[in-house]
Structure formats: C-alpha cells, structure tokens
C-alpha cells in the first residue's frame, strides 16, 4: 500500500489540528498572570493582548472567507495592536474562546467535500483545508511566544504537556 496516496480525512485532520492548537494556546493563556497581558517588557515586545487580538483577527478574517462572507479590510500598517478595551485577562481569554469556538463551529458545519473544494481568496484560489492548516500553524507560532513571555516572568513550567 502506498501511504502517499491513501485518502486523508481532511475534515478530521483540519479539526484535530485546530482543536489541538487552540487547546495549547488557551492553556498557556490561562497559565499567565493578570499583569502579563499588558506587559511589553520595556517597550521591546508585543503584549499578550496584542498577540491574542491578532490571532482572533486572523481567525475571524479566515472564518468569514471560509463561510463565503465579505471579510473586513485587513488593517495594514505594521503589527496589529489590541484595542483599549482589550485589557484584562478575563476579557482577553473570553475573546479567544469565543473566536476559536466560532472557527470550530464553522469547520464542523462543512461537509468533507466542502473542506477540499476550491475557495477564492484575495490571494488566489485555495481550499478550506489549507486555510485551516494556516490558522493552526499561526496559532502554534504565537503559542511559542506566550511560552517566552512566561519565561520572562520567571515561569519555566510546561503548561500544556
């Protein structure tokens, strides 16, 4: 049997990747103290609030495209920063939970064929499976950054293993 050519269950793989990434990210968020969320370490780093806001924005944008909605115009001009109301740990964690649950519900609602069907985006034709892979990797990148923030605050634990 040539495993290269065996059929993949794209919906299962897409959902598994997203659930895993969201779960790790949420555990790292919950492990951070309240004061970490607006700390930019002397102006050198992005805050946790900035990171979470960007993750949510990316996922919300991709979700709209996947659902066939007209997405909002992506804010150009540098790194994404969190709005003023994005301040407390409770607000930020809740926003992440809401955003990630919406993406999972979006993917759950598609038939497997729709996950693989061509999808038009502003960057060309792709498919929903590729978009899910992109979101998963993007969340993973920023999970690593949450871990570095934890370490900067003296926490060298491993919160998602």
């Amino acid at each position, binding site marked *: *049997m*040539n*495993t*290269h*050519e*065996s*059929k*993949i269950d794209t919906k299962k*793989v897409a959902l*598994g*990747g997203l659930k*895993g*990434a969201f779960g*790790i990210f949420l555990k790292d968020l919950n492990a951070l103290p309240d004061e970490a969320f607006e700390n930019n*370490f002397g102006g*050198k*780093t*992005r805050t946790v609030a900035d990171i979470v806001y*960007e993750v949510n924005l990316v996922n919300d944008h991709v979700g709209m495209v996947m659902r066939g909605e007209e997405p909002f115009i992506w804010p150009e001009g540098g*790194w994404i920063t969190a709005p003023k109301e994005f301040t407390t740990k409770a607000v930020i964690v809740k926003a992440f939970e809401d955003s990630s649950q919406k993406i999972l519900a979006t993917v759950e609602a598609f038939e497997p064929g729709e996950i693989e069907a061509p999808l038009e985006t502003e960057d060309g034709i792709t498919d929903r499976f590729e978009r899910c*892979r*992109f979101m998963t*990797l993007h969340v*993973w*990148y*920023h*999970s*690593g*950054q949450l*871990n*570095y*923030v934890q*370490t*900067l605050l*003296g926490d*060298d634990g491993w919160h998602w293993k």
Partner: protein
Amino acid sequence: MLDTYLKALDLCYFEVTEAFRGLADEHVWVRPTSTLLSIGELAGHIAYWEAVRFAGEAEDGGSERDLSTCKVKSPLLDPRFGYFPMTLATSPSEEHLAMSGEQVCSELLRIHKEAMTYLVALNPNLENPAPHWGPQSKYEDLLRYVAFHIAYHTGQMYSVRHLLGETPPDN
C-alpha cells in the same frame, strides 16, 4: 496522506526563512536574557529533533537520539541543543558562533531537506506506531507534533528579535 504533512512542514520552513530575514548576524547567538535561548540555539533545537526523529538510525530501524548513528551530519546537530536546560547550561561552540544568520538558516533547511528524504523513502503508514514516540502514538501524531514543534520555536525566534530591539516585518 504523507504529502499533507510534508506540505505543512514546507509551510513551517517558509516561516523559518521569514524569521531569519534581515536578522543581524551579531544577534544570531545572543540570548535576550539569561533564561531564553538565542535564535541560533532555537535553530539547533529544531534541527536536532527533526534529524534524530527521521534520520536517526536505531538497531530496530527506527529513530534514535544517538547522533553518532544519525544519517544527517551538521554542526547544528549537537547534543547541547537537544533539551532546553542542557542548552542553557552550555554555551554554543566556537564553530556555532562563527555561523552567520544566513549560514544557520541554510543549514537548518538542508537538514530538513535531508531528513525528509529519509522519511519519504521510508514511506511510513501513518496509522502505524512511530518508533520512540510513545506506545500509543502513530506516525501521524509524530508528524503533527514535528510541525507544531517547528512553528512553536519559530514564533520564539521572532520574540528574540523583538527583545534584541529588531523590528522584523513579520512578527
């Protein structure tokens, strides 16, 4: 099915190259604080685990952490990069410190390419248990974890650049 994960790894390494883009050579091996690894050390850590998992050669034909039997050779494949506390406790070698950002990135990509050659030749059934990866874990789980591992530490490379005062276009 393997192709699905190879594409994910390709995407990971695209982002690795972005994380190195414009990196100042004098920052490659600098730890931003005493408790955080440098970009070069993070690259060594990614390289080490990809090489031993896919090109490490144990007696049973599976992967092994023993670099002496690893089929890929590189200065970046060094036991000091295997485990975070060990990396922190050991400074990079003179050979490491002489490597520029471009050299580290190129070497990391070469290691990945060679490791993938061995994986593709092995052509594992992704439903089968992955050697040295826990009794309940399949090759598919291992490949998903490797993609996660690369992405996770790539994000940290950006954090190091921020902490060292760089403003890379991506973040």
